[in-house]
């Protein structure tokens, strides 16, 4: 008998795909039930989307005003209370899950397994260390609850053909007021989300300026791609931090990743290792990114992108 509780990630309107990926990991455990819990306020659509994920037994909704923002200090005591009836508590290894889950684990008096990339059996998991330069197999003590984050780049979203029951519940927990949400600023436009996009076009220091990034944005829009950047491009102020791909940014797994003017520092390569096909265009024939690219071309991105623009896209 083992039961899994998965903490849903959402923005109040939409369920984040990280949730369906976390479910994909959870279903590889031998379990009797996998429940999703949604913390929020008026999260009707989110609950509907969660109920459609196949493999889910029940969707629990904790709908109170104080849950309208995802503050770890507010959510963690509620998760810890709910965890009572479960053997596993999983969240995604996004900034949401990374912030929340260790706080939950500590309240439960247990350790955490970060970034599960593979389930070997109900107590044994693989996870990356040293920025993915080594993979460890970790065996957990099953006399305690297992709290973990799931490395979302290692899993595809679970199918959406389920019809789980949804249930409003109340959780009694002491919710602190010492942490308050102020604001969230993001530059999300119509472009596909980096962590979901099938195709990602990405630029590095070689792009040269904020203005030049428009070349990438236009090309990305033409082929319906998400846009990412290397740390060098973010640090140089060309693009905002939420576009950073790599060890300290987003770890992504698109079907196709096209890197323009990115040399391929190890920290960047860590973020794209799980991509299906990697294309690299760089002026420097010795750029390390060519060592891992499936298709490489030595060339000037300012000449290549306009040509690609002509030959690709509708």
């Amino acid at each position, binding site marked *: 008998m083992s039961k899994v509780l998965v903490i849903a990630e959402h923005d109040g309107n939409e369920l984040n795909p990280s949730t369906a990926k976390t479910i994909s990991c959870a279903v590889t455990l031998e379990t009797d039930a996998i429940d999703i819990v949604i913390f929020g306020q008026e999260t009707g659509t989110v609950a509907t989307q969660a109920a459609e994920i196949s493999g889910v037994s029940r969707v629990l909704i904790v709908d109170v005003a104080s849950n309208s923002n995802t*503050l*770890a*200090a507010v959510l963690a005591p509620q998760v810890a209370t709910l965890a009572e009836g479960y053997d596993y508590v999983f969240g995604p290894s*996004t*900034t*949401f899950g990374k*912030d929340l889950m*260790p*706080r939950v*684990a*500590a309240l439960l008096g247990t*350790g*955490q*397994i*970060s*970034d599960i990339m593979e389930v070997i059996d109900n107590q044994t998991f693989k996870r990356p*260390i*040293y*920025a*993915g*330069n*080594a*993979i*460890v*197999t*970790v*065996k957990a003590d099953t006399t*305690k609850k297992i709290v973990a984050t799931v490395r979302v780049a290692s899993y595809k979203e679970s199918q959406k053909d389920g019809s789980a029951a949804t249930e409003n519940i109340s959780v009694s927990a002491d919710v*602190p007021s*010492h*942490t*308050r*949400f*102020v604001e*969230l*600023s*993001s*530059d999300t436009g119509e472009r596909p989300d980096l962590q979901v996009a099938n195709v990602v076009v990405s630029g590095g220091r070689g792009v040269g300026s904020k203005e030049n990034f428009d070349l990438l944005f236009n090309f990305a829009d033409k*082929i319906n791609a998400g846009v990412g950047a290397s740390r060098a491009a973010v*640090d140089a102020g060309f693009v*905002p*931090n*939420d576009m950073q791909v790599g060890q*300290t940014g*987003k770890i992504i797994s698109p*079907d*196709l990743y096209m890197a323009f003017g990115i040399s391929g520092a190890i920290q960047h390569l860590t973020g794209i290792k799980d991509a299906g*096909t*990697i294309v690299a265009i760089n002026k420097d024939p010795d750029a390390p990114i060519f060592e*891992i*690219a*499936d*298709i490489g*071309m*030595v060339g000037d991105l300012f000449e*290549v992108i306009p040509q*690609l623009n002509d*030959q*690709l*896209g509708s």
Partner: protein
Amino acid sequence: MDKVMVCLKRVVDYNVRIRVKPDQSGVVTEGVKMSINPFDEIALEEALRMREQGHAQEVFVVSIGPDDCQQQLRTGLAMGADRAILLESDGEIEPLAAAQLLLKIIERENPGLVLLGKQAIDNDCSQTPQMLAALWNRPQATFASKIEFNEDSLRVTREVDAGLEVIEVDLPAVVSSDLRLNEPRYVKLPDIMKAKKKPLETIPVADLGVDTAPAFEVTSYEAPTDRAKGLMVDDVAGLVSALKEKGFSL
């Protein structure tokens, strides 16, 4: 604010190429350069700036690990920390135990703020700050890229997947630093000399009454499967046809 506590972890330097031992028992750490975890160095830099701007009176650094950690603590002192505490242990300390040990120091020192890196670049766990905040029953502001002072609280900008989130946390609190919080200063030779005279206290972990026995057993270490070097094309036409061959119709 009276004191700021900064936690420093000794890790393999970020420039070292990590190799898994042939018998899969670990990664090679013998003879490799060791440093302060880069995110912790950023945390220390932020604490030092707070003191320099008059927000804090004292900055002290804490590390957990073997005697060798004194090197990293001395580097922290050379950067400008006032004193150092080493919680000495030869065994592996997991994040929960680390948080429990650090809580003991918090109870003794009563810092107004605890700063740590958002993750250690060796095990990449990203757990200790959040666990410490939970055990201390205080706020956490993880992945911080900007910290501003209000009267009894901080306004912290956090780097999250969706962009930048601003939260307000009452003090005392735990803040974990992200890359863009600041650029740490370089240590100058006279500072290294001065650091040798600064106090460094050693406390055996066994004296702190925390169960540090590992809860997880690492059964093997493997090198990741490398991506093979692919095809080089000469021009855009070659690139487009290579993409088509892979099944992409863009």
